[in-house]
């Protein structure tokens, strides 16, 4: 029979909807509403995996996201998810899961031999060994350590699913939909506030679904369902199920993950797998409940040893019997309910073992009425069994000197008390404080607009939870600006009491030693904690790092408080003095895809296209990235064309004839106002007060530290109207820089400006025939006298309104036409048409680079943020009698000292051997092997069609004074060395006659 361990009835599963799944290749059945863990338990499967270090059998400890042990590999192939907690996986048809960290099989795992060597594998053992012989570290030891580490294996294919991110604002965010959260949401919503309530589970109600409790006379889960129905009907409430709030960030920003499609085999079309929500609440009510902590005794990690409340959850919510013979071991009253509920489900409860000597009388009476034995003043000292617990050995809390009492059982439900879930509270910046009544930490002073209620506040009584939830919800709404009367809380049925006495470690049975696990996932034992303290790793943080306690995928949710209590005991100090380790996001591990959202792959960064892009693409242009832009790099004419073929052809066509390039990517800034000239004068190192209307000027800007920032041309279009261009790379930084100075430093300047980069398509027409070409389409006089070098004018290009600039980057007679971008492609086509008879052709950025190198124009690779105007040969432009940005720091001693890298031209002296960017310049005494001081480097290279050799620009120590010398350009990465001649950086037309022709 399948599902042997299902109760006959009850539970919140849908027994009419069976679901098939496989675990380790074997098929099982469960029901809708099950988790993988509950379904496995229903089938009597308790062994789920092997532990990290000793490969001990591990089962299911808990029933929620705090689970340290029950981790499986879920799904297969590209959808594989290692280390997935069986306790949080909603069962779906066709689910496939596998155990991890075991070989050859889960039940027989060879590495379990580590168990025998455990004294050797004590805390921090690897720091003390593996150092000899030295070479073994890299080749042998580390290899083994790495293979042993990690539990599951990662998928290696791209994830086929997608993820999303969404933003939502609200007045009140309620985290957790247990009784406290539901009340808080209701109270805030009743006042009209925009409310978000989020819970990890699909079924809202929190512990009401797993406990046998009543509210307003109804079963707790029914009350919760009614409450949820009421909230769903309100349009000011947004309910998020399957949504875990995982991070509390600055300024009350809260992040959550919604598992949109994890409960189905494959997401529905268009649906994301998971979605990150970024909430912007005015107020937050944290009603996240509490996590039970296990008692620590010998072999407390054997499958079948579970948290007492988890046992209730499996019994009540999932209709599962986690065992047939149970004992309950506790130090508090709450766990008695486990015995009562198990009994109700038909499980034999052999005994309740309470470490306290005076347990709660009514509860004791109730046990008696059910004929459940109550043993007080004792606890479980150790458990026994192989892959499933078989017995418990009882010891007195004082320690014994005789053989322990043995009780046979297949389930031990253990409760060591409760830890409020303070993660979010603590992440918000608050400091939790220790509370002696519950032997755990409770919320401290709030640092953000946040309050904890219910079990998260250390208040475990159901009535208290309802009362606090209501009051906090109402108060949060009020703080968010909503008025209205508070309602009365509903009446909770009696839920017993929660008194507790501390018991941190059980005494071990007489004369025996056992492994007592603190952190079950990382296999950290009590002895490891003690050893760490003994060796001086005795603050909580050092303890954590030395033993790795709390560093596993559960982040110590069930182990941290136990660990620090043991440490405090070892140090002989009170727990609050020892303190807790820092809570960090995320509250539960969250898939990386969620943080990335849509911003991956092609959406990681947008692409910028010019208006001529489609034409370029049609031509088969090869593109290059320039920031986010795509620019045509060169235009192959046949499949066999290499880049060199192309740029030589395109360069020749420009130098000898006429060619066009799309220069739309340059930054463009429209500047207007009475103080525009003065503003420019302060931005640039050169003079701007006397630029005539209709003229263009080249300018250089420095950063405040004296280094060159950007260069470009600025034109004067009207009395108070200028048009600036920047380099493509610096378009945005230059605009911000100008806005900075205008708004913060010189707000009195009456000038306005804005970017018009996007408005204009820019086309450079260059070459000796450029004037001839343009004359055919431009409606103004282009003769040299009327429109000389550095002139600008407004005109039409055929019907298209345009601006024409006579500037040149190539060193040829050249113009730049700007037209509104929607006309860009048409303008381009008209120019091509007009130039057809002259053989006009497009050219890309590669020949552009060639020509600028030949012409000695510095660009990005020389303006590398470390060069001054002097280094770049531009100091001549500067006017030091006026003020400009960077003036003072560009005159510091080191900026003028000898030994700076200065721009030079370089010519290969070895025909047929081309210089390469990134080569360094060294004197000829240096061999490729020797350590040396580089004297500079090659910043830009090309084969110069005009000179017929490989040339370059470089930055060379004191380069300006070294023209004519020879030096080696070395490229040790490829064992290359080329002899070069240092020369003036302007290789062609040094007087600039061509551009003025």
């Amino acid at each position, binding site marked *: 029979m399948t599902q042997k361990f299902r109760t006959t009835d009850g539970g919140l599963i849908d027994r009419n909807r069976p679901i098939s799944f496989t675990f380790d290749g074997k098929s099982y059945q469960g029901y809708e509403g099950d988790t993988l863990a509950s379904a496995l338990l229903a089938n009597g499967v308790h062994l789920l995996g092997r532990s990290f270090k000793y490969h001990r059998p591990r089962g299911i400890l808990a029933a929620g996201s705090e689970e340290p042990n029950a981790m499986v590999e879920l799904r297969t192939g590209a959808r594989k998810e290692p280390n997935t907690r069986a306790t949080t996986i909603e069962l779906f048809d066709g689910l496939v899961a596998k155990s991890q960290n075991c070989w050859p099989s889960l039940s027989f795992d060879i590495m379990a031999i580590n168990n025998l060597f455990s004294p050797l594998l004590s805390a921090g053992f690897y720091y003390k060994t593996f150092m000899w012989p030295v070479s073994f570290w890299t080749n042998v030891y580390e290899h083994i350590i790495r293979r042993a580490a990690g539990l599951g294996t990662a998928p290696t294919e791209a994830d086929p699913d997608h993820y999303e991110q969404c933003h939502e604002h609200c007045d009140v965010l309620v985290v957790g939909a247990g009784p406290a959260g539901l009340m808080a949401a209701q109270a805030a919503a009743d006042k009209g506030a925009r409310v978000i309530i989020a819970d990890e589970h699909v079924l809202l109600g929190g512990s009401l679904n797993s406990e046998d409790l009543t509210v307003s006379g109804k079963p707790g889960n029914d009350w919760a369902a009614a409450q949820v129905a009421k909230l769903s009907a309100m349009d000011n409430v947004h309910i998020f199920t399957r949504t875990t709030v995982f991070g509390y*960030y600055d300024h009350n920003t809260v992040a959550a993950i919604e598992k949109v499609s994890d409960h189905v085999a494959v997401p529905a079309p268009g649906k994301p797998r998971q979605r990150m929500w970024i909430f912007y609440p005015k107020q937050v009510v944290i009603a996240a409940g509490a996590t039970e902590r296990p008692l620590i005794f010998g072999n407390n990690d054997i499958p079948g040893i579970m948290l007492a409340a988890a046992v209730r959850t499996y019994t009540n919510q999932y209709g599962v019997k986690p065992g047939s013979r149970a004992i309950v071991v506790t130090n508090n009253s709450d766990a008695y309910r486990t015995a009562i509920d198990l009994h109700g489900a038909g499980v034999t409860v052999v005994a309740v073992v309470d470490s306290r000597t005076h347990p709660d009388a009514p509860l004791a009476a109730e046990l008696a009425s059910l004929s459940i034995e109550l043993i007080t003043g004792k606890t479980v000292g150790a458990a026994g069994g192989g892959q499933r617990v078989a017995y418990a050995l009882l010891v007195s809390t004082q320690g014994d000197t005789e053989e322990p009492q043995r009780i046979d059982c297949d389930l031990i439900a253990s409760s060591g008390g409760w830890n409020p879930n303070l993660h979010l509270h603590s992440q918000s910046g608050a400091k939790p404080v220790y509370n002696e009544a519950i032997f755990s930490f409770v919320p401290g002073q709030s640092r953000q607009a946040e309050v904890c209620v219910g079990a998260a506040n250390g208040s475990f009584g159901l009535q208290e939870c309802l009362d606090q939830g209501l009051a906090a919800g109402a108060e949060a709404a009020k703080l968010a600006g909503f008025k209205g009367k508070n309602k009365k809380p509903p009446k909770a049925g009696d839920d017993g009491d929660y008194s507790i006495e501390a018991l941190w470690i059980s005494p071990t049975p007489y004369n025996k030693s056992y492994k007592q696990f603190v952190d079950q996932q990382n296999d950290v034992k009590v002895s490891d904690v003690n050893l760490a303290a003994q060796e001086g790793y005795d603050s909580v943080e050092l303890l954590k790092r030395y033993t790795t306690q709390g560093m596993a995928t559960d982040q110590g949710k069930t182990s941290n408080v136990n660990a620090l209590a043991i440490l405090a005991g070892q140090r002989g100090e009170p727990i609050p003095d020892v303190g807790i380790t820092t809570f960090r996001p995320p509250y539960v591990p969250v898939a990386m895809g969620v943080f990335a959202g849509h911003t991956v792959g092609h959406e990681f960064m947008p692409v910028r296209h010019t208006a001529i892009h489609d034409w370029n693409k049609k031509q088969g242009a090869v593109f290059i990235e320039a920031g986010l832009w795509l620019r045509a790099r060169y235009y192959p004419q046949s499949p066999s064309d290499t880049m060199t073929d192309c740029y030589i052809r395109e360069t020749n066509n420009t130098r000898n004839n006429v060619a066009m390039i799309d220069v739309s990517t340059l930054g463009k800034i429209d500047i207007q106002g009475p103080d525009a000239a003065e503003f420019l004068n302060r931005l640039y190192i050169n003079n701007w007060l006397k630029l005539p209307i209709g003229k263009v000027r080249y300018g250089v800007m420095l950063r405040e530290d004296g280094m060159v920032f950007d260069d470009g041309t600025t034109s004067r279009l009207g009395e108070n109207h200028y048009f600036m261009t920047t380099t493509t790379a610096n378009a945005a930084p230059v605009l911000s820089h100008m806005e900075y100075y205008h708004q913060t430093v010189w707000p009195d300047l009456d000038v306005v400006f804005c970017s018009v980069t996007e408005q204009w398509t820019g086309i450079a027409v260059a070459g000796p025939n450029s004037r001839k070409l343009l004359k055919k389409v431009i409606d103004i006089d282009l003769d040299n006298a009327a429109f000389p070098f550095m002139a600008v004018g407004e005109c039409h290009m055929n019907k298209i309104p345009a601006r024409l600039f006579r500037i040149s980057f190539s060193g040829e007679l050249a113009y730049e036409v700007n037209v509104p971008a929607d006309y860009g492609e048409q303008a381009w086509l008209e120019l091509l048409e007009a130039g057809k008879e002259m053989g006009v052709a497009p050219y890309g950025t590669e020949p552009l680079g060639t020509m600028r190198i030949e012409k000695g124009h510095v660009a990005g690779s020389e303006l590398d943020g470390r060069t001054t105007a002097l280094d770049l040969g531009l100091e001549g432009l500067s006017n030091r009698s006026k003020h400009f940005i960077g003036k003072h720091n560009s005159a510091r001693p080191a900026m003028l000292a000898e030994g700076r890298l200065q721009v030079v031209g370089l010519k290969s002296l070895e025909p047929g051997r081309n210089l390469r960017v990134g080569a360094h310049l060294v004197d000829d005494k240096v061999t490729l092997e020797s350590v040396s001081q580089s004297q500079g480097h090659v910043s830009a290279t090309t084969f110069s069609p005009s000179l017929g050799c490989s040339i370059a620009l470089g930055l060379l120590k004191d380069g300006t004074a070294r023209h004519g010398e020879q030096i080696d350009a070395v490229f040790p990465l490829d064992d290359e060395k080329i002899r070069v001649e240092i020369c003036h950086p302007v290789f062609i037309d040094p007087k600039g006659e061509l551009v003025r022709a």
Partner: protein
Amino acid sequence: MHYSALSLIKHALTGNRGWTRAWRNPEPKKQYDVIIIGGGGHGLATAYYLARLHGITNVAVLEKGYIGGGNTGRNTTIVRSNYMLNANSQFYEHSMKLWEGLSQELNYNVMFSQRGILNIFHNDAQRDAFARRGNAMRLNGVDAVMHDLDGVKKLMPHLDFSKNTRFPVTGGLAQPRGGTARHDAVAWGYARGADRLGVDIIQRCEVTGFRRDGDKLLGVETSRGFIGAGQVGVAVAGNSSRVFKMVGIKLPIESHVLQAYVTEGIKPLVNTVCTFGAGHFYISQSDKGGLVFGGDLDGYNSYAQRGNLPTFNHVVAGGVTMMPCLARLRILRQWGGVMDMSMDGTPIISKTPIDNLYMNGGWCYGGFKATPGSGWVFAHTIANDKAHELNRAFTLERFREGYLLDEKGVGATPNAH
């Protein structure tokens, strides 16, 4: 107590009860020859080398919290010496050489793992910049290899190599000797080493001021009272400005948060340290199996020691773009450290305007790899009252004069380095 496989067996047989403290827990003395403020890797290494190489053993390291609790304990542990500028290259290479013998030197396994570091590039401009750097490395005697696409595929088989991707991978610059180390162990190993040579390591002892008599430095005020010192070295990373403010020195440093993250542990997937060329993302896998990764600064002055959300999202987006199979792996923890960002991105290891007061800081996001080298030259600087050749360029005065060491070329914008 010597650590070895043998001692491990011996102690295992006696229930591990024989292990003694790795370092003592002494009460501070009244007076020390040298006080080092800051029990991070740098402070502890400095103390170790002062004792070991310069015979100065009357030394205390004062740590306000627990040792290694600053950036040493929260960094992504990348060790490399792939710098471009000569002064940096030579200094970090010296440090690299010390790393190579560190576990033996300290008799403490710092798990230095030379799994290599690979900087991916995506276009010619990036390749050219890496070529310049790689060639500079080689000229300085540092190992560097330029890989083409196939070479990258061998080292990092799970990157997105599809052609139609936003940022196709075209190659990478590797430093095979680069790698990672077990960060905490570095602090602990130096602490134990220094302690064994007589250095006092004093935790939970915050320096709150300096006591001076005119120009003469007398010692430091601390949360545990005044402690006298002949010389004081400050190695407090992100807190440099706060400590130097106590003596009226305003530094060319801003404090910024850098975040890091670790995923759940998995079996080996990433076998080298790898950086993305198109976004802020770098990744490696720890000995414990977690993928440790990080990206850029949060971007604004901060002492918060925790990271914010937008940077988190951006870094992970870069990671998933570079390596799409990461999407289903889960992040376990996010944290942050306070970086001492200098104005040119290069550290300061230097004398200060105050006699007998020395500074070690400005490490930005790269000081872990410097730990041995930094301690070594800082100890030399303190012992000789004079910089070593290797830190001669790392002065405090270089900003005033203009002798900047700006690897990135972004100028005095600390959040951009």
